[in-house]
């Protein structure tokens, strides 16, 4: 398969403008500004079938089209580079090794909604990537690719790299906007959606790094070339971050619809040390874990993973072999969500901590039989009862671990110790 997002990832010095331009970089940007009307650009991206790669999979062109064209307010484009979903490290790779592709995509998206100020909100911990991005922005200003009257078109665009300060929730788009407005990163109720009431109450589009990085290729090769890849509803390629008990961890680019089992066994070299697969999270820590038999016929596209009872999410694949204690894994993630809940909605603020405590006591041999149903009850009371999707993201994996590995949880409770470790000893 021809790579789109990772095609230049191993080229030395590719983070520099000169190298990026020598490989055809910013030609799409020039063509867009010089020859395309925003409406044409939106139609082209709609036709490509590109969907948001941050996790939700919403069609990108459609998201842009919700921005009111006649609004007297300024419009903002925000690149969401706040990659924080456990198991996901694809955006960091793009930001560090191909920052100009992310930037070119950001410019194209800004033009589509006729924004004159674009922000790249980058996770605070990613200092190296932020420096690369800041240098990339400085280089494009110097080369006249951004700023005032770009290519003599009369179109102005400024880009600001904004560093976050450590808060998982700021990856959620309305929380990100609150943070960018200078407040605590608290999510906001939708509707109204950011497309009409976003940053400072102005029309705003927030797109993920990987989504934006695909745009230069799509504009260069045409929507139909992109749409020719993938499945009927999941077009193009997608990045998968693979970690955990796997022979060859890393970031892979796959055509949408690639068989999951084949990917793990052949491309990633399978579970190492002759161990058996016990479970796999397909789309980042927020998504329900799957048992080995559940991935037999699954393909890596939005629809197929959903039909198997999980979600493709960010494409963060976490592999767990037979030595993994699922109680400990569930507790680990429950602790993550308890730590990261922003504290705004009661079901999530209280529920995440309750679930963490209960998983903790089961793991430490102090659980009771009723605890499992108690967690399921808390989980279902969080689901759908919070302002943002974080509540669901915390509730879904907790319930999935119990439902799919209930015997292991029950054995932990009955024997008051870790049964997986006992068998290993």
């Amino acid at each position, binding site marked *: 398969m021809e790579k789109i997002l990772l095609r230049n990832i191993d080229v030395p010095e590719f983070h520099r403008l000169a190298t990026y331009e020598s490989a055809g970089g910013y030609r799409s940007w020039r063509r867009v500004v010089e020859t395309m009307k925003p409406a044409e650009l939106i139609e082209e991206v709609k036709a490509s079938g590109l969907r948001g790669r941050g996790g939700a999979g919403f069609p990108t062109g459609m998201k842009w089209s919700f921005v009111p064209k006649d609004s007297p307010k*300024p419009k903002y484009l925000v690149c969401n580079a706040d*990659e*924080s*979903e*456990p*198991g*996901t*490290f694809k*955006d*960091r790779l793009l930001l560090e090794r191909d920052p100009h592709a992310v930037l070119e995509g950001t410019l194209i998206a800004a033009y589509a909604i006729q924004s004159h*100020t674009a922000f790249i909100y980058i*996770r*605070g*911990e*990613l*200092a*190296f990537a932020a420096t690369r991005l800041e240098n990339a922005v400085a280089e494009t200003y110097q080369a006249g690719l951004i700023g005032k009257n770009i290519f003599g078109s009369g179109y102005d665009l400024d880009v*600001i790299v*904004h*560093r*976050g*300060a*450590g*808060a*998982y929730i700021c990856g959620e788009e309305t929380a990100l906007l609150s*943070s*960018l*407005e*200078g*407040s*605590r*990163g608290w999510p906001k109720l939708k509707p109204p959606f950011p497309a009409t009431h976003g940053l*400072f109450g102005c029309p705003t589009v927030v797109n993920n790094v990987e989504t934006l990085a695909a745009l230069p290729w799509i504009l260069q090769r045409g929507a139909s070339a992109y749409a020719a890849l993938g499945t009927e509803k999941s077009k193009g390629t997608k990045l998968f*971050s*693979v*970690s*955990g*008990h796997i022979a060859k*961890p*890393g*970031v892979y680019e796959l055509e949408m619809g690639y068989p999951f089992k084949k990917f793990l066994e052949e491309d990633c070299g399978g579970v190492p040390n002759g161990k058996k697969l016990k479970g796999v*999270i397909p789309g980042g*820590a927020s998504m329900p874990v799957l048992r080995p038999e559940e991935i037999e016929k699954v393909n890596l596209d939005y629809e197929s993973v959903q039909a198997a009872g999980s979600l493709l999410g960010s494409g*963060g694949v*976490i592999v*767990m072999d037979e030595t*993994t204690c699922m109680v*400990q*894994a569930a507790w*680990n*993630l429950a602790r*993550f969500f308890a*730590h*990261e809940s*922003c504290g705004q909605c009661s079901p999530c603020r209280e529920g995440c901590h309750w679930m963490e405590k209960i998983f903790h006591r089961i793991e430490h041999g102090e659980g009771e039989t009723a605890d499992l149903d108690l967690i399921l009850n808390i989980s279902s009371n969080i689901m759908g009862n919070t302002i943002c999707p974080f509540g669901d993201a915390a509730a879904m994996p907790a319930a999935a671990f119990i439902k799919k590995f209930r015997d292991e949880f029950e054995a932990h409770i009955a024997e008051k110790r870790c049964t997986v470790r006992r068998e290993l000893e």
Partner: protein
Amino acid sequence: MALEFSPETLRRFAETVARYPKKEAAILPVLYLAQQEFGHLGPETIEYVARLMEQSPAQVQGVVSFYTMFNTKPIGRHHIQVCRTLSCALGGAEQISAFIKRKLGIDIGQTTADGRFTLSEVECLASCGTAPMMQINDDYYENLDEAKTEKILDALK
């Protein structure tokens, strides 16, 4: 004498604020400037930033306490942050943490007596494919084992 930015930092402050459509949007970069200049964000620094930003100290404190990267207390020269989330845990993060605790003689959240190291455990740092890993100040250290961790710490003065 009241706490104040150096002339150079004041210049950077003005430049930073000017880039944003609204002054309050610059709070994170301004807090970073303050943390860089004063080492941590104590009550006096928060009051100073509040005055500069034309906000109440409570507003600024609310922002500071929301994020993990702002230190409200002094920390060591090298802030070790070991990732503890699932992929790193599967890769042996707990052993790395335990090794550092033993080596430095401190617990999570503590600073060595000489002010050289502070040890924290943190959530996922987007480096799961090279687990286990830690961040020290701005730098990532990946694919850790005890020997490699020891070498890294020994090299930091």
